[in-house]
């Protein structure tokens, strides 16, 4: 062991970094509605995201009803099915997961975890939420306009996204693009805050290598999102102009319902490049915060430091950087230059290595730990299983020639639901069960939590694991009804019906969770300030829930990393980050 460099035993002055001029609410409105407090904004983001997520959940029931029992439900036709899949995908990926991880978890945890009083630009942070809400409202409005929401698929590929023959061609697609543009503007405002807060507002002693991995994950994801979302912005603006002004950015010479259009010369592939330049980093924008959260959950609940912290940080940074050079693996069969396939297959499979390291380090953290099988821990374990499963099928789809038969089949649907649907949602749930006591001061009900966990995990696995095999069979995605074929046996329909039943059950289990959240708010067990015995800074606030300004009179001083669990020689099985080393006198440090 290397000797431990101690500070000279002298007084350390109270921390003075990042004393932002705090904004003080004066009325109920500015305290709870137009609040500039990151913690309130976080709750607003989370509630909005989960509400719109419920809409997407109901849409998924509709899709599963149609797929499991084609022809039974007369209120779902081909057009509606396409609208359902489009809105389900768009909402889940962008308006739920991105907003919840960055706007929800990011806003709540970043200032608390790095020891700041608030985000650095609280006013911009507030605007971010309201623009996001506007984007959500515009999105919801598409359900009520003539023609309904767009049915172009969440990828919105031109030409079909803006031509007749696709549902929602009049209003749906226009509002969809407008909503995306608003979302990106709102996100940029929030994203600036998350990044600059980590850069500038860390409290004294909080070096980068002492930050919890949750902050690393959210920070890196935000940097990626800030650079990648402009691609979606540009693509959306150009597609909107093609639709409204008749320009031909993406539109080649083509025939629409037998009539030659005025479009000409454009390139649909250009849109795909722009879309996936955003779209692939987006996968990691959702995954990296989940990685971070899972690392912290496992460490806290196994009472053990995260194994290989440095490797974990490097892997996050490496994944973030690499994810900008793999986008075209979504386009292997798009008709782009086939020789790109060699490059993108190689980069894609290389990214598997840092990702695999993260998985190894999670399970190695469990090794010789003191594993408390709490609800957050259960969700963390389920995350590992679903993420490993989905990550490994990514090795099929990333390997260019293997992708050829599998692309655009149910295999792809199963893969991305497992890896960026179920797995991140497991992280979301784990995170909610873990931090709910800090947000509200009360624990979520344990029994309901366990019920919710088992139904959600086993149910979701039962939906998406068999779905891979429908894809192997050759069943294409985005079909409301496979109809008569020579290659799909009747038994596949039974499998579909089984998956649909599982989906309905999993969906209803979420109602239990909602009930738990509301019930525990009033009747939950009092949590105290640090129910899990966690070492990171957010559990060391003087009040729970943390008050305005988070830290009372003085900012905390950080003396150690966030993972001092079961340290040999220490009295308890964890040492809080702001506990000074033995023998170090302090003045004015946090009591």
């Amino acid at each position, binding site marked *: 062991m290397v000797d431990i460099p101690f500070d000279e035993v002298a007084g350390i002055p109270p921390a003075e970094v990042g004393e932002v001029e705090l904004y003080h609410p004066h009325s109920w409105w500015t305290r709870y509605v137009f609040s500039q407090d990151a913690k309130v904004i976080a709750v607003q983001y989370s509630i909005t995201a989960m509400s719109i997520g419920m809409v997407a959940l109901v849409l998924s029931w509709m899709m599963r009803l149609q797929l499991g029992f084609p022809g039974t439900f007369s209120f779902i036709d*081909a057009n509606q099915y396409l609208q359902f899949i489009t809105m389900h995908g768009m909402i889940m990926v962008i308006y739920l997961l991105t907003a919840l991880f960055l706007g929800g978890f990011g806003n709540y945890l970043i200032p608390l975890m790095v020891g700041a009083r608030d985000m650095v630009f609280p006013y911009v942070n507030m605007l971010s939420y309201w623009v996001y809400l506007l984007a959500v409202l515009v999105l919801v409005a598409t359900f009520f306009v003539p023609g309904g929401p767009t049915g172009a698929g969440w990828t919105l590929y031109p030409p*079909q996204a803006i*031509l007749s*023959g*696709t*549902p929602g061609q009049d209003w749906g697609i226009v509002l969809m693009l407008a909503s995306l543009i608003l979302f990106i503007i709102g996100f940029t405002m929030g994203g600036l805050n998350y990044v600059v807060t980590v850069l500038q507002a860390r409290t004294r002693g909080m070096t980068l290598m002492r930050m919890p991995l949750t902050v690393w994950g959210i920070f890196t994801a935000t940097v990626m999102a800030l650079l990648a979302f402009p691609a979606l912005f540009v693509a959306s603006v150009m597609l909107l102009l093609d639709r409204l002004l008749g320009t031909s950015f993406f539109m*080649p010479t*083509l*025939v629409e*319902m*037998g009539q030659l259009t005025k479009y000409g010369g454009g*390139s*649909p592939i250009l849109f795909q490049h722009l879309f996936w330049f955003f779209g692939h980093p987006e996968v990691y924008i959702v995954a990296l915060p989940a990685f971070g959260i899972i690392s912290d959950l496992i460490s806290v609940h*196994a*009472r053990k430091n995260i*194994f*290989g912290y440095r490797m974990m940080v490097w892997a996050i940074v490496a994944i973030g950087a690499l994810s900008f050079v793999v986008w075209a693996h979504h386009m292997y069969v798009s*008709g782009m230059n086939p020789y790109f*396939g060699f490059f993108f*297959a*190689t980069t894609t*499979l290389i990214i*598997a*290595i840092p990702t*695999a*390291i993260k998985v190894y380090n999670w*399970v*190695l953290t*469990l*090794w*010789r*730990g003191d*594993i*408390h*099988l709490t609800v957050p821990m259960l969700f963390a*374990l389920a995350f*590992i*299983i679903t993420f490993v*499963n989905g990550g490994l099928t990514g*090795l*099929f789809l990333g390997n260019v*020639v*293997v992708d*050829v*038969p599998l*692309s*655009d089949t149910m295999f792809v649907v199963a893969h991305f639901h497992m890896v960026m649907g179920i797995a991140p949602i497991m992280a979301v749930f784990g995170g909610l069960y873990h931090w709910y006591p800090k947000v509200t001061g009360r624990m979520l009900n344990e029994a309901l939590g366990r019920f919710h966990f088992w139904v959600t995990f*086993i149910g979701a696995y039962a939906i998406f694991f*068999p779905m891979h*095999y429908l894809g192997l*069979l050759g069943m294409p995605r985005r079909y409301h009804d*496979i*109809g008569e*074929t*020579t*290659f799909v*046996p009747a038994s596949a329909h039974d499998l579909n019906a089984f998956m649909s039943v599982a989906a309905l059950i999993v969906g209803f289990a979420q109602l239990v969770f909602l009930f738990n959240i509301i019930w525990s708010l009033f009747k939950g067990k009092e949590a105290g300030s640090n129910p899990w015995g966690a070492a990171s800074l957010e559990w060391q606030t003087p009040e729970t829930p943390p008050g305005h300004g988070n830290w009372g009179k003085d900012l905390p001083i950080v003396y150690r990393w966030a993972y001092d669990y079961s*340290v*040999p020689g220490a009295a308890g*099985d964890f040492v809080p980050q702001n506990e000074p080393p033995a023998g170090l006198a302090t003045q004015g440090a946090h009591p």
Partner: protein
Amino acid sequence: MAVALVLLLVAVASVLFHIYSPWWWTPIASNWRYIDDTINLTFWITGAVFCAVIAFMAYCVFRFHHKEGRRAAYNPENKKLEWWLSIVTAVGVAAMLAPGLVVWHQFVTVPDDATDVEVVGQQWMWSYRLPGKDGRLGTSDARLISPDNPLGLNPNDPNGQDDIVVQSDDLHLPVGKPVKVLLRSIDVLHDFYVPEFRAKMDMIPGSVTYYWFTPTRTGTFDVLCAELCGTAHAQMRSRVVVQEAKEYHAWLERQRTFAELSGQHDVAKAAYRTGRE
């Protein structure tokens, strides 16, 4: 233990499902057996990793779950172990990537003796065009599309006059002869997808994409559209009939050329009718 057991069961059930699943590839009908082999190899490697990770996790949960008085070990990192795991992972990844790239190289290298066949997608039907006696397809342009010329073929291109146009009918192909499929769309994105051939590629309005394969067994195969193309995407069907050379030529003889279809529209139809009688 219940939790550890369930975790283990998830892995075991996944493997059993994989082994006993009746849902598997449709029997292959093209030369792309290598693709299937690469997938099987990938299944072996990834399946082993999946089982190993979950088994290890389940063991940890079983062995190290919280008991009164247990204290976790203190172990910040183990450089050597991490490097070894990285190297082993890299080797595994290379073992999947290398054959993949080799097969991809074959996939993008069209053999010289491949015959051109054009597939045209439009909302929501398939049309086909085969070269005539000259073995060459004529040029086409979406601006030339009209009710008389639904595929937009260039009437001034001498190469195109003897092209055989197959509309609202099945495509026939001779068995054992490599085919270069030229893919064209006149409205939105489509994707010519025959599950038994394994190969697929999007068709993009404004450009011509391609892939190649060799049909290896006779039969009739479904054609589906694999790229979302609007309302009737799921109903955009056709068939490919792979036949012995003799039957194929008999079918070919019965088809009509572009010149017959456009120039002498009515005459050709009459001739066709009399020919059948």
